[in-house]
């Protein structure tokens, strides 16, 4: 079946502009995560959605970052007034929580470059 998809694959934006990154999780997966990966570095947790529960936003680095998940499926990560330090690969992952299988399925990522 289809995996996690993310769009766009690449985004170049000017400093100060807003950007929206989209994630389509695997159908039926109830948990969805956003991470940020700087060049060659580890994963930085941003936000986590689980079913209808309130999202865990503890990883968002500033109030310029926000995310929503509509209908328990598609998620959008929004970065307002982008800064050069926001340049990174943004990864989305989903998990079939209900089955007790906790492994995460990752999308290919969106490479964001802020000029």
């Amino acid at each position, binding site marked *: 079946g289809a995996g*996690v998809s993310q769009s766009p694959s690449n985004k170049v934006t000017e400093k100060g502009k807003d950007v929206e990154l989209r994630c389509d999780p695997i159908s039926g997966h109830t948990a969805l995560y956003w991470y940020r990966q700087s060049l060659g570095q*580890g994963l930085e947790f941003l936000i986590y959605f689980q079913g209808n529960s309130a999202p865990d936003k503890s990883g968002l680095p500033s109030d310029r970052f926000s995310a929503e998940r509509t209908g328990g499926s598609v998620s959008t990560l929004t970065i307002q007034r982008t800064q050069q330090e926001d340049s990174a690969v943004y990864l989305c992952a989903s998990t079939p929580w209900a089955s007790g299988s906790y492994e*995460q399925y*990752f999308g290919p990522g969106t490479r964001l470059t802020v000029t």
Partner: protein
Amino acid sequence: AQSVAQPEDQVNVAEGNPLTVKCTYSVSGNPYLFWYVQYPNRGLQFLLKYITGDNLVKGSYGFEAEFNKSQTSFHLKKPSALVSDSALYFCAVRHYGQNFVFGPGTRLSVLP
């Protein structure tokens, strides 16, 4: 708080030799442990996990890992390395009710 350490930034091994990528963790209670691999210009792929049961878990591409509770370790191993195993490897931990925490990653280079 949960944390994961991968003490080696880089591991080099000759093709055909055994490989080990180290991971230690800090979490209260019983951890859920994972290994992921990231090939160049590709997303992360799940390799294997330990949730409960046998301490030795086997995963994709001939990899295995051993959960050692006393040493709080979950080292990734493969008996015979392939050049195609060259990639970035991430260890991750999750404790019940909490988020996943990823280690900083270890770059594995398998030399022909």
